[in-house]
């Protein structure tokens, strides 16, 4: 089946750390910077709270892309959290790539509380990339699909 890209609306899950990226997302809102409504944000205390399970679960439940945002390296509110994230996600994304989830569907970005514009730009770019890739069918669990 050919995916019609003009109508395809991807499901994007964004995990944002409470201290930098969630505040950056709020700033994007305060500055009225548009990005697609397909992005839904989940607030976590730190990017290192994101268990690889959550990302697998998202893909299983039909997400088309997952993006993880944290503080810039060295700026983590918990000092070292984002370093763990960086290592864990490198491994996870490499495994997902092996499983057929294209590398472009997963991303880690550092967005500080002052970077509302960067947040919006990142989301626009990510949604565009995922939209081009089309629907994710690799890990999707058909049993979870609502009829």
């Amino acid at each position, binding site marked *: 089946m050919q995916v019609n890209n003009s109508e395809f609306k991807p499901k994007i*899950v964004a995990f944002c750390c*409470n201290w930098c990226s969630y*505040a950056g997302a*709020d700033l994007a*809102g305060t500055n009225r910077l*548009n990005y697609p409504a397909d992005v839904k944000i989940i607030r976590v205390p*730190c990017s290192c*709270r994101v268990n690889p*399970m959550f990302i697998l679960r998202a893909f299983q439940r039909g997400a088309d892309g997952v993006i993880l945002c944290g503080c810039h390296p060295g700026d983590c509110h918990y000092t070292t959290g984002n370093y763990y994230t960086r290592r*864990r996600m490198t491994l996870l994304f490499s495994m997902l790539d092996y499983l057929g989830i294209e590398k472009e569907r997963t991303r880690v970005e550092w967005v500080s509380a002052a970077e509302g514009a960067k947040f919006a730009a990142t989301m626009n770019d990510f949604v565009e990339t995922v939209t081009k890739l089309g629907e994710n069918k690799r890990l999707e669990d058909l049993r979870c699909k609502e009829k």
Partner: protein
Amino acid sequence: MQRIGVFICHCGTNIAATVDVKAVAEALKHEPGVVFSTDYPYMCSEAGQNIVKDAIRDYHLSGVVICSCSPRMHEATFRKAAAVAGLNPYMVEIANIREQCSWIHKDIPQATEKAITLGKAAIAKVHLNAPLYAGESPVVKRALVIGGGIAGIQTALDIADAGFPVDIVETKPTIGGKMTQLDKTFPTLDCAACILTPKMVDCAQNENIKIYSYSEVTDVKGFVGNFTVTIKRKARYVDETKCTGCGICTEKCPMKKVPNEFNLGMNNRSAVYIPFAQAVPKVATIDPEHCNMLKKGKCGLCAKVCTAGAIDYKQKDEFIEEQYGAIVVATGYNPINLDKFDEFAYSQSKDVITSLEFERLTNAAGPTSGTLLRPSDGKHPHTIVFVQCVGSRDTSGCGKEYCSKICCMYTAKHAMLTREKYPDTDVYVFYIDVRTPGKSFDEFYRRAVEQYGVHYIKGMVGKIVPQADGTLAVQASDLLDNKQLHINADLVVLAAAIEPDKSARPLATMLTASMDTNDFFTEAHPKLRPVESPTAGVFLSGTCQGPKDIPETVSQAGAAASKVIGLLCKDKLTCNPCVAHSDEWMCNGCSACEKVCPYGAITYEDKEFRMPDRTTAIRRVAIVNEAVCQGCGACTVACPSGAMDLKGFSNSQIMAEVDAICK
């Protein structure tokens, strides 16, 4: 099954203009567990909060979902309201449908759909919420102020006045900061030293204030109410307790050719020095870079002349550790380096100076004793050109993007004072915009033009070329006259942009306080919490937070002090209950969590367990110290057995959110 109430806020039209709030309320009403759903124009108002409180009582709600602005804004408000109505505050979840929905989307159906999804995710999370109870931790009733400029001094004095002990850590040998180098202060033109030095003396005499001069903060551990700070007391080779500040050593020191940083290198000082007459503490310091005794082991003259016996060449850097309940950052600013602005010939000519150097040239305690003389030949300048916005409002990468805020006013002050003292000088000020908002500020600038005849020219200086006769050829544009001007100036003063002190960045890392891209500390809320850092217990005072003038700095310093006093008045602080928790039955004692914990909050214990077959077994299990845990969640991911979970952001809660979003 929880009994959940859903409350949708219109936020006036902020949400309601792009999100069909009625449709959201209707859609969420049919979610499992939802027993009440409503919308209201301002949920955070008292009437709005009453709706929440009444619904909790009337419908026996066990969970509340508020679809409104960011939880960073009003989560605390609604939690408090829930607590008043008898519901555990941690049974409240916020769906952010303003900053992350209505404000960024224009299409009403799309925004409404997203709001519904966000609401569903919050409902899914609340289903798995459990009541949480916050623990308490004690507060050390002592504050630390980092930086001893006017901001730090004012903050320390205000905290000390309230009866709490305060320590000031200052890297320079004396407190006072940049203000000690200034001549007069706008807009009232009172002399900086006259108003600052009494405050410095107050600091020294106040029994609640301890000054660590010539010292640096090298490490910060702990959290709000309980910081452990390591302070490095640099060796000044003079015993502070013995030195009387008589100054004989500075007179006798044979090494007199050290550039005097207090006068920005425009004259020299001796290797053993007291920065200026009113220094606090008035104690000599030996500069190890230039002292012959410390470098070559020959001289020792100062030790011979010192009647107090205060000189100690064997002194070493000393590290002390102190406990503090609150930390105030007041690290201040510096003018930027002008190397990238070669067109202004700052490095080529001694007669092109920065405004701070101009302050020293007109200051009675400066290198020329207050007479305005050209640094190159010591003659009176007759034509002076002031250039504003040098490196400010610059997006080309050479300077700073922001407006440095203080330059318009101090340039007007310099121009005015020059014309008053030396009426025979021609003074030109090149400006892009004159920005003088503030009490009596614009009147002050107009006085410079109307009463003192300063030539204000709308335009910018393009280049400055030093001439053979010692003058400076200034080429500039006059945009209003549409002319290019060529002025032969004797002195050019550059209003250099200001930037945060270099020590601010490493300090921010130590404090885990966030900074913006320009290295200014960010405040917890730009409007409503302007003196607090997002990191609890860390407060901001003065220009470390953004460019500001003295009156603003002093008012911010006072505000920071009042926040610190508010914190130190408490005997105990409520901890964040969203901390890690280990399921003892699932834990296999592998130590993976202990290794990733940045706070050392996890320890291991051998515990006796009653096994299902009625035997007892001793197992090694992880224990989380809830007072120390900050709730980052690193351990939860490291745990291979899934025993470790984070309260308030549990695995199942986040997964429920993922499921709701992906549905």
